[in-house]
């Protein structure tokens, strides 16, 4: 006899995995790709790996008051293909996306069509083999693919935010809405840089997930510049088109570019200050873009696209070869959705 809380979700009887897959398609419970059939045994193992009770509340979406329980999160994690040991990351990510400042409802229903980018820091990235190197944003790595997918399935199935018959009204959408999870390439950080989660207040030995409401990134190659100023001028050219009022923007810095910051001894703060000082022009020349810049009429002052030097969030990511970095804007340019970092609770 056991007093352990039991799973309470409704269940369906099937005779094969293929039947289960087709059933989930028919019920609108997939993201358009086949799902792993979530058996009670697999879901229980996933909960156990994170030491979670099925009825534990991982997050409450603030606008609708929608509750995300550990049981529902684990079902969707299994469906996404997660190993049980990924569940602590999924649980921390649910906590992060339901923080009021992330504005989950806004970013998932908006015509702007943001995706949810998860960036993992700390020892767990290596333990779970979350890719931070070659083709970090690409396919081929189970942890990256399935943790990001689990979060999207939770948004679709638990919150009902779907594009077919639900609340998702994105005009174009974004391929990152299938899955978007990377780890920071901490091995390639300049010597005087702490990892992103340390910059955001956690300890170096801790593991974390940081969530961003990411829009389509602008990748660029700069194989010619070998100074911080030259590389940042290339970043600046991709920030200008965002317009005014950029509160948060991700700089995805490849290892080759990071090495030049390292050689020059530049800090993250210097990068923010340089871009804040550089991405500016007379107010009257900024093209109104309908975004919530707070500026309606062009004056004569010379102003920056960035709200402050802290508006840029640098992360180091990608493979060693090639000088390809990217600017990744966030929903509402970060004015109404803030990046959120949460510690991943170890079950060890």
């Amino acid at each position: 006899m056991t007093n352990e809380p039991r799973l309470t979700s409704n269940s369906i009887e099937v005779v094969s995995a293929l039947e289960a897959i087709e059933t989930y398609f028919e019920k609108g419970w997939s993201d358009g790709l086949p799902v792993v059939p979530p058996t009670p045994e697999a879901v229980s193992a996933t909960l156990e790996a994170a030491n979670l009770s099925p009825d534990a509340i991982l997050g409450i979406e603030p606008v609708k008051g929608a509750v995300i329980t550990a049981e529902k999160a684990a079902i969707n994690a299994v469906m996404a293909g997660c190993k049980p040991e990924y569940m602590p990351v999924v649980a921390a990510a649910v906590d992060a996306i339901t923080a009021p400042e992330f504005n989950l409802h806004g970013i998932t229903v908006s015509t702007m069509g943001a995706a949810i980018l998860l960036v993992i820091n700390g020892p767990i990235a290596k333990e779970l083999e979350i890719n931070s190197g070659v083709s970090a944003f690409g396919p081929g790595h189970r942890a990256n693919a399935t943790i990001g997918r689990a979060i999207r399935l939770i948004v679709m199935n638990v919150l009902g935010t779907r594009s077919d018959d639900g609340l998702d009204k994105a005009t174009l959408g974004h391929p990152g809405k299938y899955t978007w999870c990377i780890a920071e390439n901490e091995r390639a950080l300049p010597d005087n840089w702490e990892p992103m989660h340390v910059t955001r207040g956690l300890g170096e030995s801790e593991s974390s997930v940081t969530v961003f409401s990411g829009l389509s990134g602008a990748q660029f190659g700069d194989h010619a510049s070998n100074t911080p100023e030259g590389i940042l001028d290339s970043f600046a050219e991709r920030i200008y088109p965002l317009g005014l009022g950029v509160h948060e923007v991700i700089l995805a810095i490849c290892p080759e570019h990071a090495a030049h910051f390292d050689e020059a001894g530049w800090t993250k703060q210097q990068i923010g200050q340089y871009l804040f000082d550089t991405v500016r022009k007379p107010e009257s020349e900024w093209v109104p873009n309908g975004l919530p810049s707070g500026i309606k009429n062009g004056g004569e002052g010379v102003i920056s696209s960035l709200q402050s030097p802290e508006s840029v969030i640098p992360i180091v990511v990608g493979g060693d070869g090639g000088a390809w970095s990217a600017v990744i804007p966030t929903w509402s340019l970060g004015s109404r959705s803030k990046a959120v970092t949460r510690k991943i609770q170890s079950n060890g």
Partner: protein
Amino acid sequence: MASQETPMAPENNGTSFRVLDPTATQSIATDGMAERPESLAGMRVGLLRNDKLNSEPLLDAIYDVLAERFDVSSAYRVNKGDASRPAEPEFLSDFSNEVDVALLANGD
């Protein structure tokens, strides 16, 4: 010895298993429609825009039609200031004190 692949198992091997529903039933507001006025004559019309670029001209255009066809009293225009979040209860309470009927617009 290299592993041998075996033919795919038949669709139905005679045993069944259970799989779990990934969805959650979320509560839905049960408040019904507000009571409809019999006439707009003398009514104060609230125009609640959501900060989107076109919400203001859309509401103004609708109000112009109402004012032309009905003997409304006045327009009361407010902006909730953030399209992505619900208006605060206090804001809505203040708004409702100033109007008899209300129009809302998204206006993307």
